[in-house]
């Protein structure tokens, strides 16, 4: 028996309400996290927080400067390794399509799905156990393992978006293939490529599991990348599960800084890429 129009309209309204509700429901945890982190992390922020090193466990005072240093340096190591390799790998995927490229692209996509804890234990065996040392270097390598496939895929996709006419125009004018690639294509796809890189940096900045068994932790500032390093993410993990109220405050403070950096990067990138769309000549 066919439904009446009134019933159908009612079902339709219910659907629209449910769908909108779904969206709002998803926003609730986001807003809660932002609120809790801001509210509880703000208390932690003072001059000492940014200048002192982590105190002995449970101890009073101190700050997280060693964690900030460790995170920044390991992200820098990962970026120094991951960005060039990822960029050029992505360029290869674009410039020389074929069996090698297809297989490598598939491998890259699979690698982006590898759980980060697996990355951690593999890098422990490959680097930490081999060189007999926990190190920021090992942590950086673990992060770069995650970064390379992401950057490669996003570079490939950004280059694909460049209209063929630009590439053909360059080649028609007699510009050699490498120069076409470097000067014309990459600069046209610049904003997409930079977006991809920035998002991958934001992603690895927030990673914890790969650092647990590679960088260990450090009570002091590190003076060598071949020694262990504290990081903001591992600090949040340890201090969040500790009983001390002072530790919880530090954890929220570190989470606030991390959120500001990561979300800030995401927001800046989104806004910037909308202001400068990829336009053909």
């Amino acid at each position: 028996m066919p439904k009446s129009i009134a019933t159908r309209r009612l079902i339709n309204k219910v659907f629209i309400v449910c769908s909108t509700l779904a969206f709002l429901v998803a926003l609730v945890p986001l807003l809660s996290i932002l609120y809790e982190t801001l509210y509880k992390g703000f208390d932690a922020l003072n001059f000492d927080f940014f200048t002192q090193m982590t105190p002995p466990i449970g101890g009073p005072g101190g700050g997280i400067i060693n964690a900030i240093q460790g995170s920044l340096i390991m992200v820098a190591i990962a970026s120094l390794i991951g960005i060039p390799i990822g960029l050029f790998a992505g360029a290869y995927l674009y410039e020389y399509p074929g069996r090698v490229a297809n297989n490598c692209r598939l491998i890259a996509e699979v690698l982006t799905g590898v759980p980060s804890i697996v990355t951690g234990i593999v890098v422990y065996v490959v680097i930490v156990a081999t060189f007999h040392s926990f190190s920021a270097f090992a942590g950086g390598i673990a992060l770069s393992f995650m970064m390379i496939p992401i950057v490669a895929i996003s570079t490939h996709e950004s280059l694909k978006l460049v209209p063929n006419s630009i590439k053909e125009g360059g080649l028609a004018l007699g510009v050699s293939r490498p120069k076409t690639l470097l000067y014309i294509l990459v600069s046209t796809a610049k904003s997409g490529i930079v977006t991809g890189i920035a998002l991958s940096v934001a992603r690895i900045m927030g990673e914890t599991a790969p650092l647990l068994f590679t960088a260990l932790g450090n009570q002091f500032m590190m003076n060598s990348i071949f020694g262990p390093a504290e990081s903001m993410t591992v600090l949040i993990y340890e201090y969040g599960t500790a009983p001390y109220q002072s530790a919880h405050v530090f954890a929220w403070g570190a989470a606030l800084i991390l959120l500001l950096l990561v979300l800030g990067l995401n927001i800046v990138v989104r806004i910037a890429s909308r202001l400068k769309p990829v336009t053909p000549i």
Partner: protein
Amino acid sequence: MTSSSIAGWQPTASVTIVGAGATFPQPLIQKWTVTYNQLYPQVTISYSGIGSGGGIQQITAKVVDFGASDAPLSNTQWAAAPGLVFFPETLGGVAVTYNLAAYGIPSTTVLHFTSSVIAQIYMGTILKWNDPQLVALNPNVTLPDAHITAVHRSDGSGTTFAFTNFLSVTDPNWAAQVGYATSVTWPVDTAPGAAGVGGKGNPGVAGAVANTNGAIGYVDLIYALSNNLGVGAVENAAGNFVQPNLQTILYAAQNATGTPNPKDLRLHIVNAAGPQSYPISTYTYILTYQDMSNDPNISLPMAQAMAHFFWWAVHDGQQYAPGLYYVPLPANVVSADEQLLLTLNYQGTPLLSSS
């Protein structure tokens, strides 16, 4: 031989040393490394708490420069790390801690436990706080009709070793079913109607107890005291209910340490005799290679700094122990430690000169 003859030493180069292991002594060791760095700014020693199991594993694999463990090395573990030696750097008590604040029982109320009752809780046969056995032991307290959440370690732990050692020695049922080790299979995890929770490190266990109403756990004393958690009185070998504190842990050490042998400084003081001895007391050990060149990552300046740090720790460092609820080493243990530390060498050359 006093520490003053070595006090004139100055480091020859800037060195960074990495240690890792037990969370039991972590507050004290980290206090030492920070203080030592203030005394000798060229020596940076960083200690990370990854559990006694981790300490043993990482020093055996020569990934860290020294390890720390409350669990004494087993013969098998010692055989797997030729050249490794160890010495106790401090001792403390494993507190049976609980959180009943939500039920009107503040942390200042001292509950009484026998090893049998503790064993039954962790075997999942005592399920609620108002179980008749617990009520009988604590007639002056109104225990609530609430489930007991038994918190234990999820990682390899010397604190677990001491705790389960105590239960094994005093409760034959526990010894047969569970035994003692750095990591055991807790029957409470799978017993019907019971709930066990695993926490990582002493901080993780203390955190879980602090966050869970009706939880019980076992942690080094300072983790319970500085977080306002209840500390139970445990029945010792003499039949008295004793809370852990500097005095009762010291009694245990005095009664059970015996004559320490520098060649094998494994000391068992669990369930010590003596009317006021705290039964779950334990020494905790630093693990290092006798010939430090065994570890290719350790240079001569590093080895010298490490040896002097260890010497400082068992002498001057002991003054920081009571403030953190660890007991200063008894004199005979310090002497034995000294004898061991004097054998530390680098390719044969002793690191601590007796001049």
